[in-house]
């Protein structure tokens, strides 16, 4: 690490740009057009989730027995399902669950994974060994299998899906944080802090953590996409959110066997998953480019 970086790193942002954050944003957006569009998409999806009760044309649980499995029409733009519910409405309400599960699951991953990784990287030795071997054990399972096992133990439901997906992804954040901490703790300002008698806890939280935030943010954005997908997968497998709650995965689950009779039941929630995860991944990629010091200023 160069001295210049050592000096600038603790500050949140370079001085010159702080005056015009809006213009800086525009500048970044013009450099990352796809990323900007993806962010826009993510924001729109979040808005849809928030406003679902207002903009949805029907009640998500209302069953109209006179319109079973209707193909898309003006009355039902995404068609209706087997028991006569409006799919557009259910997909909109499903957005709420997907966004919520995504955010909370990633929150859980970060809340547990980051402190553990920080401790591991900073302390080293036995602590590092114990924490990281535990993480290795977790990572040895495919993430979805691990989530399945956790849901099986905790019993299905929204809360438990969040916990399962969160714990399943936790090792990723722990490892990432540890590698950051390992690199940062060798810096002179950390040495300086130590020699001034700053307690270890304070060094970790005031000096190491803020400097390791960028990759965590990038990972969180990508992880959000994974969490949305994981919730959909668990619901698709029938162990996720309990019926009749609408989630993208559960609508897809009910539509899959009907693909030949009514393609629209599975198609639209599938499309929603596809675009939201795509947006999140593109946004994550763009964030990584923007926050990576080696690419900064290009």
């Amino acid at each position: 690490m160069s001295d210049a970086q050592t000096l600038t790193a603790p500050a949140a942002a370079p001085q010159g740009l702080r005056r015009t954050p809006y213009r800086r944003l525009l500048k970044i957006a013009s450099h990352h057009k796809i990323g900007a569009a993806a962010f826009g998409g993510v924001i729109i999806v979040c808005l849809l989730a928030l406003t679902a009760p207002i903009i949805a044309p029907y009640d998500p649980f209302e069953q109209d027995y006179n319109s079973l499995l209707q193909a898309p029409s003006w009355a039902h733009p995404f068609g209706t399902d087997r028991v006569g519910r409006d799919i557009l409405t259910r997909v909109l309400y499903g957005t709420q669950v997907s966004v919520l599960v995504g955010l909370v699951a990633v929150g859980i991953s970060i809340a547990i994974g980051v402190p553990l990784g920080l401790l591991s990287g900073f302390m080293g030795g036995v602590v590092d060994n114990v924490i990281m071997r535990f993480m290795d054990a977790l990572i040895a399972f495919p993430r979805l299998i691990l989530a399945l096992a956790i849901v099986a133990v905790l019993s299905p439901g929204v809360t438990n899906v969040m916990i399962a997906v969160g714990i399943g992804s936790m090792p990723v954040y722990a490892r990432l944080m540890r590698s950051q901490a390992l690199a940062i703790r060798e810096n002179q300002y950390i040495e300086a802090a130590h020699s001034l008698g700053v307690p270890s806890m304070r060094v970790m939280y005031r000096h190491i953590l803020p400097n390791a935030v960028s990759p965590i943010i990038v990972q969180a954005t990508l992880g959000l996409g994974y969490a949305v997908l994981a919730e959909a997968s668990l619901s698709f497998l029938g162990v996720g959110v309990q019926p009749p709650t609408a989630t993208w995965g559960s609508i897809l689950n009910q539509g899959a066997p009907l693909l030949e009779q009514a393609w629209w039941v599975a198609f639209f929630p599938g499309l929603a998953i596809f675009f939201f995860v795509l947006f999140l991944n593109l946004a994550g990629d763009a964030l990584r480019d923007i926050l990576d010091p080696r690419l900064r200023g290009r």
Partner: protein
Amino acid sequence: MNARQTWESMRLGRRQALRGAGIGLAGLSAAALIGCGDSDEADSTTATATGTSEGPGAAPSVTTPDASARSMGGTLKVALGSDPTGLDPSTSRGGGDHHYLYSIFDNLVNNGPDFSVKPGLATEWEVVDDLTIRFKIQDGRTFHDGSPVTAEDVKYTIDRHKDPETQSYSAGQVESVESVEVVDDTTAIFHLNTITSPIFAILGDRNGMIMPKEATQAMGADYNNKPIASGPFKVDSWAVDANVKLSRFAEYAENYPYLDAIDVQVVPNSSVQFANLRTGDADVVTVDPKDRETARGTDNIQLHEWISTAYTQVNINTAVAPITDMRVRQALSHSLNRQAILDAIFFGEGEVANGPITKASWAYNENLLPIPEDLDKAKQLLDAAGFGDGLAFEMVIVADETRTPLSEMMKAQWARIGVDMTIVARSAEEAGAEYRNQLYPMFLTFFSGRADPDMTIYENFHSQGGFNRAKFNEAFTPGPEALAIDQKIEAARQIYDQDERKALYDEIQTLLMEQAFGILFTHRTNAVALSSRVEGFQPYGDGKYRFHELSLKA
């Protein structure tokens, strides 16, 4: 071809078979005596099959027009929706298990396609008196390990079901068999403690599948995975959630069975099953109601549709609050829109249920109307039961493509009278276990039906029935209404005259529905699709497949 036509053609087929009946022997007219079907037919049925039997184990119960015309060899590829719950006839419990078991096991006697009694291991029997039946096992029958089938094995099979340690689902079915007396190697006498008119139908089901005493005892828990039996096929392997492979039991009989092997793939998704048939990856699949229309319009497949004994219901445990109160159950039953359920979930295939006995059986009650949707009445009943402000409970379901949307419909329909039902979606194993453990008052699971109305009604609705989970609840004491129904069920079991029995079952069904001991939705129809190379398919009234009867065109 619609269901009725198929049903008719099936009956015709049987009549034709009867026309060619051989000389009546045995002459014991057991079937006539027990009152299955009208007496003449039942009598000659017994004679037919016996008459055509040649040598040991000749195709029992098969009414093939001309056996010599059938090709030998080949592997039948089957796609079924689920594994067996087990291959041990005592402890397996699934309605889909019979598809496997009938090819592996020989029954003491068989249930024919129209529920008449057909020879099995026993080709002769004599009803000595009301409580005594003498069975003669055909000479030369052997188990897969080469040991002979003896009367001792028959006794062992029944004793094993009755032994509480076995925890057999058949215990209730063979309850009236006081003891089995071994007279000699091939003669066994059943001593009944009460007249049991459906005893032959009972023995033609899982309960009468004969297990070898020595091998079964030696194998212990392993018997459930790879049973040794005396049926036309042996179990080669069972990989859970993947496949069951059966191969021909060479010593079974000359030129029977026709197939070399049966390869059953477990394919949970019904659309995939049907797709497998169309691409040639399967020869036999069950056609889900949603695929029936497509199947009817598909060339190069054989489609059979016929009336089923199966009905769809929610299993209720009357010992678990809040449905201990009859008025609550009645309210729940009256607030369902069964026609909408039939249309949405079963794509209009089948009928709205009026009772547990379907048109496939002689005991169908043609005068009983389905419980009508009546929300006012439902609300009044709830009010009277003290739940006027609402009622909440949980219902456990086996989450799948049929039961999940069905449970959502029930939830929405019950919500109209202020009932808040929470759906607990589980795997089949978990759901069954949690329901058994009295955690939920209701379990959304269907019943495949049985050959005799007693088997269906006793098992599900008698307070000691095998599928009545209330009996395992310590707090459970059957109320006066339940006891009155119990008495009628027991009485119906002891009547030989079919008309008299039917009158009693009519009454029982009316009570069961009115007092909401069962909440039924629909009666089902069976549909099976076969590839064009399959020969010899015979639809059975119980809806269970007999793969061992099939052959493949050369």
